[in-house]
């Protein structure tokens, strides 16, 4: 029993980090219907920033979010300006964005491999090897910090969307773009800002990834598969859905890993993806989409 609860605790802790990773992806989809295949490649890019900042300047990977988030925000805005503003109103925008972000992921992978080679990396701050105890249970300290930080960032994001003026405008654009225009929202600007925020969230995820997981340029394929299955399960474009999907699948994969061995835990995501697409393609909290 204690063992199972311990595994559950690992699952929940990991779920918080997954939720942060998925939140940016789902926000970008929600506002612009862009399936950003390059989301995880950008996460890896940010992980390299955090890794080298730690390696060369001993900057704490957690504190590195103050660098990765603004840098990645600007990078997101630039990517949006260069690639997306020109294709937004063509007929096949949906398919185009998938191809575009797919190629962006490939280019990023290539550039990162060229610059930093394909060696496995992981930052090792002191807390990466320590544990924190809760009665009979424990969590690696780094994991605990990462989860707390992830949840805090998600809460901030939610408050921003719920109460700020720009947050209102972003939600309005998500819900009804035509109506948002009628009340005077600059929809194009909101799309750019949300893309920036989405990529800034990838930046924060990268900072955490730099010490939680080992990474190398090609690693982003595994991550994007996981993240897409999380947000498809929860309902694409729904922030709450991303949270539900992240926690459910992180817990499920932790349990599967415990009972059947760690080689089996990745399959949890894809099995869940197949099942949800068969049973409820719009996801748990998603809305049915018009054809």
């Amino acid at each position: 029993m204690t063992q199972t609860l311990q595994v559950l605790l690992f699952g929940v802790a990991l779920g918080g980090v997954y939720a942060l990773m998925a939140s940016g992806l789902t926000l970008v989809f929600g506002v612009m219907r862009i399936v950003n295949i390059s989301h995880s490649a950008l996460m890896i890019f940010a992980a390299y920033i955090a890794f080298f900042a730690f390696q060369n300047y001993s900057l704490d990977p957690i504190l590195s979010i103050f660098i990765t988030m603004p840098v990645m925000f600007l990078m997101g805005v630039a990517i949006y300006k260069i690639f997306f503003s020109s294709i937004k109103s063509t007929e096949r925008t949906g398919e185009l964005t998938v191809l575009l972000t797919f190629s962006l992921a490939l280019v990023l992978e290539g550039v990162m491999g060229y610059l930093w080679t394909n060696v496995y990396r992981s930052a090792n701050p002191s807390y990466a090897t320590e544990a924190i105890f809760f009665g009979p249970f424990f969590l690696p300290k780094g994991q605990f910090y990462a989860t707390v930080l992830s949840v805090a960032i998600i809460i901030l994001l939610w408050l921003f969307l719920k109460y700020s003026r720009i947050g209102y405008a972003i939600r309005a654009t998500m819900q009804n773009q035509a109506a948002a225009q009628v009340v005077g929202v600059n929809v194009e600007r909101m799309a750019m800002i949300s893309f920036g925020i989405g990529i800034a969230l990838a930046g924060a995820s990268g900072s955490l990834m730099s010490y939680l997981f080992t990474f190398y340029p090609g690693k982003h394929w595994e991550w994007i598969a996981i993240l897409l299955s999380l947000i498809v399960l929860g309902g694409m474009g729904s922030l709450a859905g991303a949270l539900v999907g992240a926690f459910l699948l992180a817990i499920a994969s932790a349990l599967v890993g415990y009972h059947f061995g760690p080689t089996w835990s990745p399959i949890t995501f894809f099995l869940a993806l197949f099942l949800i697409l068969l049973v409820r393609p719009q996801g748990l909290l998603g809305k049915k989409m018009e054809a």
Partner: protein
Amino acid sequence: MTILEIDNISAGYGSGPNILKGLSLKVEQGKTYCVIGPNGAGKSTLLRAICGLLHPRSGRVTYKGEDISKSRTDEILMKGISFVPQDRSLFPDMTVKENLRMGGYILKDRKELDQRIEKVLTMFPILAERSSQHSKTLSGGEQQMLAIGRTLVLQPEIIMLDEPSLGLAPKITQQIFEMVSFLKESGMTVILVEQNARKGLEYSDWGCVLDLGTNRFEGPADTILNDPRIQELYLGKRRNNGQEGAE
């Protein structure tokens, strides 16, 4: 006094053909205008061109002597022209109150905005009652009220309604038209596009018949209502058999 002048505008979507072809119209302050015409005549396009959702390819739109044909929608809203689109265009997962708040999105003063929202809520008791409900849970008539109420947050001088009675039951339609009268009585200039042309004209001072992107006829609403040619062509009046034989 002429408040809005549309001078020979042509407009269309993307790289498509012109929907409006050299249309002109003068709008007098405080009057209600009903724009009628067959499908595809350019009625909605005209409203979109006035409020900056679509920029005319040529010609000018002048509001109080100022050329607004190149202005953005938020600038035009700020000047006092509001638009209620055909599908009511609400934010389904926002509450009634949040929808009203979006109506005042371009206002930066939060206090002022709160006051204006309260004012709209006192005008529409049904919306006040449902103020914390998501707008998707409202009935069709309530949604239309909300869409109109949302524009009133900005206290516009001109309000443009695109087929406000579309898809509503006759009793509710009646309420919407009474709303139109109320807007006129409060001093607003109303431009109404109506599929229900007869009803729309009854509640208007001036009627214009659009066809193929131009202003085919215009005149006092009752003249238009009683003009036999217009009745035949645009108001769907059936000729009786005897007359038909005579023609």
